[in-house]
């Protein structure tokens, strides 16, 4: 079985069993939705419907209702398109790239991140479609034999590459997501009592039975799909950047675009995952599965990709000057000091400065701070696209046609509408779908679950883990660090049982022949009292402790896990013994 280093923080907190995982994930689906869900759903639906209304008005009237003009032919809608596609990168990245790298922390977040990805790509896909103006002729982008002579679509054009890239990405992402969902739908199906949900989940589960051969295929299919999806993710945003990079417009015509767009996409995608996940874990009581460590990992990804983006911005600036191309130089000068300076500098602040704060461990482990930064990053990434698109276009080669872009009410309505629709989909997902990949999380329970990690050698042939039967009190771990969270209270009996197991290994001592344990570095008066309570009084006893005893001790005292081992109490005690003997 896979073993994990003891110093690695557990990924599943508390004393969970397989059944607990099922319960925790299925309960929100089976229970009635809370009032807040209905309120949020209503708000999202109203905003979404308003957006749909704006789109219908636009289709009926024409693209003229947008704030575009002769100079600025691309602005708001393409900004939103790129923004949503970017957000739609995190899910596949988490589930595919992290699967290839065997990162186990992905399992708690991949399902909902993938859902988010799919919904975000839906929203993204809408913008080019409505940008066509005549939506009903949308099939013209496909290479179909037609009545205008056999003129085909242009396979040299990045815009057509985009059609293929986005539709492949969306459909492969959807398949990847659904294949992972099938076994979890089967779990819900087998638990469902009411006839309607039972029927619904029976349909959705496709008759999954969990046979050994099915699992064998399942694992391979997940791996191969991950292998296919990984280059796909990178290709999609590279191709989106080609839309700009292949055109001869100052500020767009740069070879740095593909990697820089991909990093930016991952950056904004993870920020959106953070925003959603921080709310979801709290609302659905999933704090034991998505905890501070997961947030920290994601913040590290945000920090790294944010730094890549920052480097790209500065490289771009430098090259615009170093290239000696005056148009290029002017485009960047205009970005920073022209009429859109406020957009440029908000982009710089949000995307370059804010992720750097993640170097501080305290900040990247703070949930409130993470939430704020995730919003800031999303705003910053929207501005990035707006700056790239609008500032490059609004002052073109001919100063007499210089212009400004002001979004119209319809522009804003469509954008807000996609946000509303996105949340409508996500809320429905959170209500009816298993938000955690049940089958995957169960596979890491033994290697990364807290109760198993603390007693690494006892579980192998013992079907029951250390404390399975005891209803562990619900741990409130909202703001405390994971270390403090591991203070799970054990029942009286267990404490006695463990203490006696510990004493039987290191030998009994008595209060009469008591040594001053406080001399050992790492032991204070409080801890000494605790040790005495357990029955540890002398250096001799402490010196006999090994890894196993330390683990037992950690469970009993519940404080500073791993401390005794790190400070080598046994070694210290041996030295102290020698001193007192001589």
């Amino acid at each position: 079985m896979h073993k994990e280093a003891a110093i690695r923080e557990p990924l599943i907190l508390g004393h969970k069993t397989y059944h607990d995982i099922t319960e925790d994930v299925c309960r929100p689906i089976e229970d009635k939705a809370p009032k807040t869900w209905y309120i949020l759903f209503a708000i999202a639906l109203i905003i979404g419907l308003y957006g749909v209304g704006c789109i219908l008005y636009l289709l009926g009237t024409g693209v003229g209702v947008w704030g575009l003009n002769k100079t600025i032919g691309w602005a708001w809608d393409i900004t939103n398109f790129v923004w949503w596609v970017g957000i739609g990168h995190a899910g596949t990245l988490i589930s595919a790239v992290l699967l290839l790298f065997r990162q186990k922390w992905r399992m708690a977040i991949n399902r909902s991140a993938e859902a988010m990805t799919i919904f975000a790509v839906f929203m993204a896909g809408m913008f080019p479609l409505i940008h066509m103006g005549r939506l009903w002729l949308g099939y013209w982008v496909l290479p179909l034999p037609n009545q205008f002579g056999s003129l085909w679509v242009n396979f040299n054009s990045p815009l057509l590459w985009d059609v293929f890239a986005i539709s492949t990405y969306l459909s492969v992402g959807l398949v990847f997501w659904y294949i992972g969902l099938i076994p979890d739908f089967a779990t819900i199906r087998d638990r469902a009592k009411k006839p309607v949900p039972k029927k619904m989940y029976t349909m959705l589960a496709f008759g999954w039975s969990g046979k050994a051969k099915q699992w064998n295929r399942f694992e391979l299919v997940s791996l191969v799909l991950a292998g296919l999806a990984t280059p796909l993710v990178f290709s999609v945003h590279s191709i989106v950047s080609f839309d700009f990079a292949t055109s001869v417009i100052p500020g767009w015509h740069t070879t740095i675009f593909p990697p820089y767009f991909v990093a930016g996409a991952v950056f904004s995608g993870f920020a959106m995952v953070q925003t959603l996940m921080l709310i979801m874990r709290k609302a659905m009581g999933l704090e034991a599965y998505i905890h501070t460590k997961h947030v920290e990992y994601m913040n590290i990804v945000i920090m790294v990709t944010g730094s890549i983006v920052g480097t790209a911005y500065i490289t771009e600036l430098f090259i615009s000057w170093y290239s000696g191309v005056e148009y290029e130089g002017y485009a960047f000068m205009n970005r920073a000091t022209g009429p859109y300076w406020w957009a440029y500098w908000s982009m710089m602040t949000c995307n370059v400065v804010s992720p750097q704060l993640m170097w501080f461990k305290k900040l990247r482990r703070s949930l409130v701070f993470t939430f704020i930064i995730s919003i800031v990053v999303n705003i910053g990434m929207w501005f990035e696209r707006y700056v790239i698109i609008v500032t490059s276009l609004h002052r073109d080669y001919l100063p007499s046609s210089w212009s400004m872009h002001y979004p119209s009410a319809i522009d804003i309505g469509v954008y807000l509408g996609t946000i509303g629709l996105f949340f409508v989909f996500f809320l429905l997902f959170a209500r009816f779908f298993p938000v955690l990949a049940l089958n995957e999380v169960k596979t890491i329970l033994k290697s990364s679950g807290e109760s198993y990690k603390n007693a690494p050698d006892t579980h192998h042939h013992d079907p029951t883990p250390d404390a399975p039967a005891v209803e562990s009190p619900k741990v409130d771990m909202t703001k405390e660090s994971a270390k403090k969270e591991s203070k799970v209270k054990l029942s009286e009996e267990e404490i006695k049982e463990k203490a006696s197991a510990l004493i039987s290994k290191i030998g009994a001592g008595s209060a009469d022949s008591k040594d001053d344990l406080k001399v050992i570095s790492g032991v204070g008066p409080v801890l000494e009292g605790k040790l005495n309570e357990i029955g540890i009084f002398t250096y001799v006893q402490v010196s006999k402790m090994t890894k196993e005893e330390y683990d037992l001790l950690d469970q009993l005292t519940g404080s500073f896990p791993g401390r005794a081992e790190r400070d080598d109490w046994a070694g210290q005690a041996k030295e102290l013994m020698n001193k007192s003997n001589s």
Partner: protein
Amino acid sequence: MADKVIYAMYDDDDVLKDGAKKLVSKGVKVAEVFSPFPIHGIDPIIGVKNTRLGIMAFLYGLTGLTLATIGMRYFMIVDWPMNIGGKPNFSYMENILSFIPITFEFTVLCAAHGMAVTYLLVNKTLPGMPAQNPDPRTTDDKFVMEFRMSENSSFSENELEEMLKETGMIEMDQKEVH
């Protein structure tokens, strides 16, 4: 012929795996294992062969690659050689760079969907299919081994039951199948 099926239920994957190992070494044939998540290492023990879906995915990918190449060569070179900015498409090889993105996307599209469809078909997991797991708890936290008496004719039912009890099973069930 009527056959008797015995189901042994476990509440831990490692116990089931150790049990299966012991049983197989004694010559018992395990017909099937039902579990809520993949038990790593169970396949060689009970004699489940590795799936060949990976090879299928590769073949589907090749199909996509070929189709994309043939299609684009026909559209852009043969049927209507487009002349963009005075740069006409004379041959596929001279223009191959701009065909790479779509070739890649179409390869991935065919490989992923071909494999997914094949997976659903061979798994017999399709909309409306009935579930075959013997106990609803096997998708939650229980693990079930299935034995067929016809495959284990050298053992009597009682012998098998005794052996199963030694492996730490928690429940047993049997069923006649026809």
